Structures are given as C-alpha cells and as structure tokens.
C-alpha cells in the first residue's frame, strides 16, 4: 500500500568528552572532528546549500549552535520512525567511539539529554508532519493535545532552570516552554507549545514543525508519540476541529502542572468550564480518531495506533508504577526513587530539602557579591560567621519536626548532583547509556513487534521503502565518492558530473525524474 502520511524528526545531542589527563577538550574542535569522521566513514553527499551531510538512509547529520543533530528521513509509519531513530543512535554511537580513539580521549559520547541542569540550555527533539493545511490553522486543534501528550511522551527528569531545587518532572523540556504559540524555536522567552514555522521543503504541502517534545529512549513510547500525534494532525487536517471541545484556558500552565504530577491525575480547566486531566484530553482525541480510523485520509496503521493508544491511557490509571518499565519518565521515576532511598533519603525528605534549599537560594541571591562568592554549599550556608547565620538560626527550629538536620545538607546537595548526572547519562547513546544497560538487563518492556535488530541495522545504511527519502538515499549511494561536487538536500540531489538534478519536491515521489541543471557551474548552489 502506498504511503499517505509522512513524518520526520530532528534530534539535537550533547557531545561530551573527557581527556585521559583531565580537562575538557575544545567543543568546536570535537564537533569538527566528529563531522570529519562522519564524512569519511559514512556513505554520504555533502549538503547542498546547507551544512552537514546527507546519508544513504535518507537522513542528515549536521552541526548547529555547537550541537550535533541527526535528522531522520521522511517516514511513512511509526514503525519506520522508531527504526530510523534507533539507526541514527547506532550511527552516532559508533562515530563517538571512533572520535574517542582518534582524539585520544578517555571517553566521548553523545547524549540525548533534553536539558542542562547547570545552565539554561535545552536540546530539541523536533518532529515534522506533512499537512495540507497551513500550520497556523492547526494551532487551536493541536495545542490541547500537545499539552496532554506530556503524560505519554515525556522523558522524565528534573525541573531545569532552578538553581537549588530538585523537582521531578515528566518533561524537563516543558519548563522551557513559555508561550502557547511562537515564531521562534530557540528563544529562551518565546519558545512555544505550537511553532508556526512553515518551511515546507516540498511542493503542494506544508510541514508542521513541533518542538515541544522531549527526546526519549523507549521504543514503545516513541512509537506512540509519533502515531498519536500523526492521527491528531490527520483529524485537524481533515477539518474536524478536534481541539475545539478541549481548548484549555491556560495551556502553558496546564503543561507544567501535568508535567509535575507522576500520578497523571492533575486537572486543568478547559474553556468549556470542564476540568480535564491529561488522560481525559487524550481520550477525547482518541475517540475521535477511533471514529474515523478507517477514513480514506487516515493512515493504514490507524487502527493499530488507536488500539495501542487506548491501552496506554488505561495503563496510566496506575501511574507511576504501571508505566515504570515502558515510559521513559516512569522508568526514571522508579530508578531515581531507588537511588534516593539508597542514599538514605525518601521522596518526602527530598521535597523538604528542596523547599529548604529553594529558600536558602533566594536568600543567597539577595546577597551582594559575585555568584562565585555566594554558592549554595554546606560550608557557605553553615558558616557561623557567614551572611546566612541569622536565617540558618531561624530555620534550625523548624527542622526536627520534618525529620531534617543541617548535617544532611551536604548529603542532599551531593544527591541532587547525582540525580542530575543520572538523568543526563540515562540517554547516553551506545552501550553505556543507563537506559540501554537496563534494557540489556531485561527489566524493561518497551519493544515494538515491527522493529527488530536486523531492521535497525538495515535502516542505518538504507532509506525507507516509500517516497522521496527512498529516491534520495538510493541516489546518494550511487553518487557517493563520484565527485566532490555532488550534493544533496531535502528536495534535490545534484549529479555534478552529468550536470543533472533529481527533483524531490514531491514528498511522495516514487520514480526518479532527473533534469538538466539550470546553472552549469557545479560549485554554485545559489540556484537551489
């Protein structure tokens, strides 16, 4: 059956490395080396009019703002999405391993980490969905879903952007979202739930670009994230206005409230006056998808997606324990809880210390002097001649009733750093990533029947079976190393030797249509 729906993804990753003799290598140098290794070891063509390289699997690798990115090829099913996500992970883990050897590093790895707990950076996991409608027209129908999706698509972690706290959240990236609708994807104050960017990269279609999601490891969760979103996009694209009955009064606040509750019971007020949980909102979309799952404008895999989506929403009734082996945030919640207990704390004491250090943090921020002179450390806070002695004296009276004592402050701060580091290392690509270690230990339940190891290996070097990604990947394989002037982007492949271009403006193109290149100067990319 020919593909009717296309979707894709971009994953931004942090490259971290350590030298054997200590100290950090220069990040730009590392990224350049990583790019050079990718160019020399992978079947590829250089980017045409854009940086990086395009791969024989139809995807793209590139560097942007000191972060390494993998954009997958256009995929026609959630099975394919999962395969190409995992294929990218394998490619990148291998590249990082070669980098460590060549640059004489003790360790080098890419991390699917979402947020930086010691700063304000965030790494995106963007999604793209092909639509007939202009993205701006879909905003109202998608925003309630994207808000509610946090309970099924969240990576889990801790609230970033707090200097002192340690609050578990279903989605660390949700805290970087400031407005319902945005033009920008990178601004710290205007990153939106819905992004109006409309860079179609095709003829006759639009491309909905979603940037509110987290990068996640669970296959089952990635499958459902793309499948459910694609169905909702299809409903909206068909003009059914699926969001109309569940429009939220304050979506950004609702996103953060939903993200703060591992039981998934928190409710937000809809403009209809109803109080709705994230599961309630998703059920609304699910039932609409069920009603129309056999419509001609729905993908062939819609019935399977409806069934899996329904099962997950039922499973969330018992959250967080019921999703502790299949959703990233559920796995992390259990793993972090176990570590907290191992260090002699429990979740309630962790919350108490978080509240206390938040208060201390506010006091410290109000002090004069540079940031380095007033850090939140046990030595600074408990210095009997320090600037916080009065505050500490006042707080001391309240500690025993909460089972706290100042001697534990240092242990709390150490635990907090450990939890942040564990979250960072959870999504490390390759065999040392915590998620991958747990998976090998056989304690996770996140497999997808349609995705196996051989298929992932195949997807690392070969394009999807349908659409222009197939044509792009096949052309790249043929033209690789034939001429350094050969190049590719999402809509064109250039064969400079023959002076021909392959036009891939139609995302569903099934056959190659080459035409004479208008500008015969092979080095000139401006005409594309």
């Amino acid at each position, binding site marked *: 059956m020919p593909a009717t729906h296309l979707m894709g993804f971009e994953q931004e990753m942090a490259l971290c490395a350590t030298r054997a003799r200590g100290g950090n290598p220069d990040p730009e140098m590392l990224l350049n080396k990583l790019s050079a290794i990718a160019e020399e070891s992978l079947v590829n063509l250089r980017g045409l009019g854009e940086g990086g390289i395009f791969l024989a699997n139809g995807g793209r690798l590139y560097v942007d*703002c000191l972060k390494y990115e993998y954009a997958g090829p256009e995929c026609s099913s959630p099975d394919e999405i999962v395969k190409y996500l995992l294929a990218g992970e394998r490619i990148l883990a291998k590249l990082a391993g070669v980098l460590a050897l060549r640059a004489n590093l003790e360790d080098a790895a890419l991390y699917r980490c979402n947020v930086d707990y010691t700063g304000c950076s965030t790494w995106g996991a963007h999604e793209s969905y092909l639509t007939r409608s202009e993205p701006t027209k879909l905003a109202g129908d998608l925003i309630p879903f994207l808000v509610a999706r946090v309970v099924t698509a969240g990576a889990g972690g801790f609230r970033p952007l707090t200097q002192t706290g340690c609050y578990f959240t279903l989605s660390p990236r949700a805290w970087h979202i400031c407005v319902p609708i945005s033009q920008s994807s990178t601004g710290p104050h205007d990153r939106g739930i819905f992004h109006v960017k409309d860079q179609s990269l095709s003829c006759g279609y639009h491309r909905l670009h979603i940037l509110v999601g987290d990068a996640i490891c669970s296959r089952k969760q990635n499958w459902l994230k793309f499948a459910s979103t694609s169905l909702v996009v299809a409903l909206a694209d068909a003009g059914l206005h699926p969001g109309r009955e569940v429009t939220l009064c304050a979506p950004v606040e609702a996103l953060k409230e939903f993200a703060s509750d591992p039981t998934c019971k928190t409710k937000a007020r809809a403009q209809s006056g109803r109080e709705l949980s994230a599961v309630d909102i998703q059920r609304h979309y699910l039932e609409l998808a069920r009603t129309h799952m056999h419509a001609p404008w729905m993908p062939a895999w819609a019935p399977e997606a409806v069934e899996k989506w329904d099962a997950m929403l039922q499973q969330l009734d018992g959250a967080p324990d019921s999703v502790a082996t299949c959703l990233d945030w559920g796995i992390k919640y259990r793993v972090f809880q176990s570590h907290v207990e191992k260090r002699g704390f429990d979740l309630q004491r962790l919350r108490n210390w978080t509240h206390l250090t938040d208060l201390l943090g506010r006091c410290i921020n109000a002090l004069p002097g540079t940031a380095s002179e007033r850090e939140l450390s046990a030595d600074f806070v408990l210095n009997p001649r320090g600037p916080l002695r009065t505050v500490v004296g006042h707080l001391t009276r309240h500690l025993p009733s909460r089972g706290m004592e100042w001697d534990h402050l240092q242990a709390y701060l150490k635990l907090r750093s450990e939890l942040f580091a564990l979250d960072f290392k959870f999504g490390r690509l390759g065999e040392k990533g915590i998620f991958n270690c747990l998976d090998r230990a056989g304690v996770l339940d996140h497999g997808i029947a349609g995705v196996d190891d051989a298929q992932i290996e195949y997807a690392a070097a070969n394009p999807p079976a349908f659409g222009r990604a197939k044509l792009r990947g096949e052309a790249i394989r043929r033209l690789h190393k034939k001429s350094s002037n050969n190049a590719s982007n999402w809509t064109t492949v250039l064969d400079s030797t023959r002076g021909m271009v392959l036009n891939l403006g139609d995302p569903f193109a099934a056959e190659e249509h080459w035409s004479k290149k208008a500008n015969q100067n092979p080095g000139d990319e401006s005409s594309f």
Partner: protein
Amino acid sequence: METQMTVHRATRQNDSSDSSAPSEGLSEIQANCRRLADAADAEIERALNGGGVNAEEFLQSAHQLRGGE
C-alpha cells in the same frame, strides 16, 4: 485569558488501597518495579563512578561542552 486558568491537583486515586485494580496485576507491577530498581542499583553505581569524575564534575564538564538551543 491565561489568568483565568485554574489548575488543581486531584486526589490521588491510585493508592495501593485502590480496590478496583486486580491484585494480580498490582503484584506483577510491583514485581516489575522491584526488578527494575535492583537492576538500576548496579547500573547507577557504574554510571556515577565511571570516567573518574564525580557527578558534580561531570555536570560542570557537560555544561562547558554543552551547545544546545
């Protein structure tokens, strides 16, 4: 519009005392959680002690190399 928003936390309904959940399913979930926690213990120690740097040093190092949006 946003200021009219009210969000409230509903009462937890999934306590272990929830009699609507089959006890068999619950014990299986608890067993899975236990296995996960046991496996995580070993991996966590390895992850935290790997690379010869402690958690704080790792976070600082990652921050300096960060990139990101």
